[in-house]
């Protein structure tokens, strides 16, 4: 049985493949089979530090290792993403100083916050194509090193307009989310990609928390050397700038695009036909589930991004904390990402094992709604200990929801997987822009009221998850279709290809994926009355 994988290495349809979870899971991934022996006798796999599959993607995840190329790519990827989060939200904890220096109003501050997350809507969409064309290393390095000048240019800012423009330009670097997830998905095999991407995403998001601690500290140290506050904050921005340059150079020198080498050197080796971007785009846009996920992520990640911008100032102003202490409290919000997001992905996986896709959808709804309810509580808390408690519970709920969402996203489409993940990611930034604009950019609501209202909006905007229905797996309230054809995964994923394309065999990858996705039936997968793959091994993982 020949490994029949249409590995679209470089095809646009898979540019962000496995950005989330469950990428290509090969039905022959059983350890002791004649096919795997054939692989082991291949010399190339022996030179990797970790066990690899036939595409040389790592099958194990060892977070403490820096082995080339897999673990090294993981660490370079998430640290780059982490650095970009630091830069994007570096202004937030220093706003109390910046607003006096530049004579900003609440509207100015709010608008700059919106601007800081808006740029990434477009850069995240473009990054997929960049990674396809130039490889993940250059995607990451471009993001880091071309936005570093924007970070340094904080030293020139003199009024509200230039402040907004600079924050907008710095925000472009959040595209590293896409390049980081792309990089891990080419380096790690489908079975573990959920955990790997959850860790990379969560640990990168932590940057939004670390910056709330780092920047006040740097600011304080620079003031100690004798600088006035209004010079110290400008100089403080040099630190994120340096970090970006250093990471960019590390990525280019230590990193490797693909398990077998760099993209430019591998460019000539057999590329499978690229999928047509227009088709991929159309199938992504046509699928209503894409847009529901867009909205959902806008109110989990979007809320998280907004909080990164407003929470430090909120604690500083409302509870009269020092800049330093407000930073510590605000940092705790972002730091919870370290385990909260991977936990969300893990919870989604466990729910899937028991209840299939319906379990995933319920997990997502529960986590996101509970998080939003705690956000409402946070806005209403008038004593500091209660506010901190509400904030911590809110952070865990919302961040776990982010992880859980990317447990669902990979199943929405196989052909347009990458684009959907990119669109969902952009939805996060869009949601953040909307919430900041509505609730935190004018004096109509106090920040406390804004927080509660944002929580209410998040609860309402999480309800659409009930409308995500898969004919083969069901939805939150509806059972899977009993229809002969529609109840099969092949029908759903095959439906993205025309008859003509099917006759050319272009849909083989989707069929393979459909077979492997039978695990989303939950415990019923074992009892499913569907022809099993040739190996005869159980379909569920």
């Amino acid at each position, binding site marked *: 049985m020949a490994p029949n994988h249409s590995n679209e290495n470089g095809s646009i349809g898979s540019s962000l493949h496995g950005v989330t979870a469950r990428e290509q899971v090969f039905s022959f991934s059983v350890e002791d089979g004649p096919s795997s022996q054939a692989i082991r006798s291949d010399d190339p796999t022996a030179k990797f530090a970790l066990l690899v599959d036939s595409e040389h993607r790592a099958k194990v995840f060892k977070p403490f290792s820096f082995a080339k190329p897999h673990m090294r790519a993981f660490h370079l990827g998430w640290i780059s993403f982490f650095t970009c989060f630091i830069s994007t939200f570096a202004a937030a904890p220093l706003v109390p100083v910046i607003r006096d220096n530049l004579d900003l109003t609440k509207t100015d501050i709010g608008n700059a916050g919106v601007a800081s997350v808006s740029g990434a809507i477009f850069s995240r969409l473009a990054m997929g194509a960049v990674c396809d064309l130039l490889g993940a290393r250059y995607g990451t390095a471009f993001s880091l090193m071309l936005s570093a000048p924007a970070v340094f240019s904080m030293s020139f800012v003199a009024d509200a307009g230039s402040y907004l423009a600079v924050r907008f330009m710095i925000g472009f670097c959040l595209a590293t989310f896409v390049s980081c997830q792309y990089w891990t998905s080419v380096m790690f095999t489908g079975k573990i990609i959920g955990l790997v991407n959850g860790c990379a995403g969560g640990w990168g998001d932590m940057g939004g928390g670390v910056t709330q601690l780092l920047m006040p500290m740097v600011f304080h140290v620079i003031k100690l050397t004798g600088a006035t506050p209004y010079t110290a904050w400008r100089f403080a921005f040099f630190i994120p700038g340096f970090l970006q340059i250093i990471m960019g150079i590390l990525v280019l020198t230590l990193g490797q695009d693909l398990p077998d080498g760099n993209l430019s050197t591998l460019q000539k080796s057999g590329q499978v036909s690229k999928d047509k971007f227009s088709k991929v785009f159309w199938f992504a846009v046509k699928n209503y589930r894409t847009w529901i996920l867009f909205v959902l992520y806008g109110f989990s990640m979007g809320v998280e991004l907004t909080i990164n911008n407003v929470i430090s100032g909120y604690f500083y102003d409302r509870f009269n904390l020092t800049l330093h202490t407000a930073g510590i409290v605000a940092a705790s919000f972002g730091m*919870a990402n370290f385990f909260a997001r991977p936990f969300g992905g893990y919870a989604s996986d466990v729910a899937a094992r028991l209840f299939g896709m319906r379990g995933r959808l319920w997990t997502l709804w529960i986590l996101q709604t509970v998080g939003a309810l705690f956000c409402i509580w946070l806005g209403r808390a008038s004593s500091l200990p209660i506010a901190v408690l509400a904030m911590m519970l809110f952070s865990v709920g919302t961040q776990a929801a982010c992880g859980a969402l990317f447990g669902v996203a990979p199943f929405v489409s196989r052909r347009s997987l990458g684009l959907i993940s990119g669109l969902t990611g952009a939805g996060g930034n869009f949601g953040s822009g909307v919430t900041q604009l509505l609730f935190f950019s004018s004096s109509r609501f106090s920040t406390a009221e804004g927080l509660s209202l944002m929580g209410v909006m998040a609860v309402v905007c999480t309800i659409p998850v009930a409308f995500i229905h898969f004919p083969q797996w069901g939805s939150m309230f509806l059972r899977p279709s009993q229809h002969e054809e529609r109840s099969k995964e092949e029908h759903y994923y095959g439906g993205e290809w025309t008859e003509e394309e099917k006759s050319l065999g272009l849909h083989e990858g989707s069929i393979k994926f459909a077979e492997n996705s039978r695990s989303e039936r939950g415990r019923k997968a074992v009892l499913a009355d569907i022809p099993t793959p040739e190996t005869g091994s159980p379909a569920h993982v």
Partner: protein
Amino acid sequence: MAIHKILFASLLICLLIQSSHGATKERLFSDLEKSALEVTATPSRVGEGVVLAAGIDKLSITWKVSSTATKEPEFKAIKVKLCYAPASQVDRPWRKTENELFKDKSCPHKISSWSYDPAVKTAQSFDYTLERDIPTGTYFVRAYAVDAKDHEVAFGQSTNEDKTTNLFSVQAISGRHKSLDIASVCFSVFSVLALLVFFVNEKRKAKIEQSK
């Protein structure tokens, strides 16, 4: 789990801060004796549309206990502060005027503090150079009289009750420095150049590999 430790630690910190607030919560501004002090503040430069420069220009401040002050025996010290005029509070909730004294944020800048000597009845005056961290805005000067427990009991200000007269404008320092600007440009150029060098180099190496 790590999160429990963080949560616990931050709760402890918060409770400690909370307990240090003390019992000053209910003291209101409206309870203070108005115009117990006569305060004047004269900028070093006056005129239509004159904006004082922080760190450079001075204020000449005088204060005197008014003859009508009834709480005068309680006075132990006089605290002089720089306060925001309404124009500088618009759309800036962090400078809001609140009646509860501990919440009020309209007078954050301390000018000076003087212990009160009941024997001296004449007006006290001093010069104050505007600090370099004073933000841009419109201001007036207010002097609070505090008692032995450091609680405000009376005040006087250089403007009228509606805060419309005798206001002065201050322009903050920009905080920009030539050396900072130059360093910024240098590092930015380095960043872009380094990327280009790597890129071109690799493309060249790939071409050489291919031609082999």
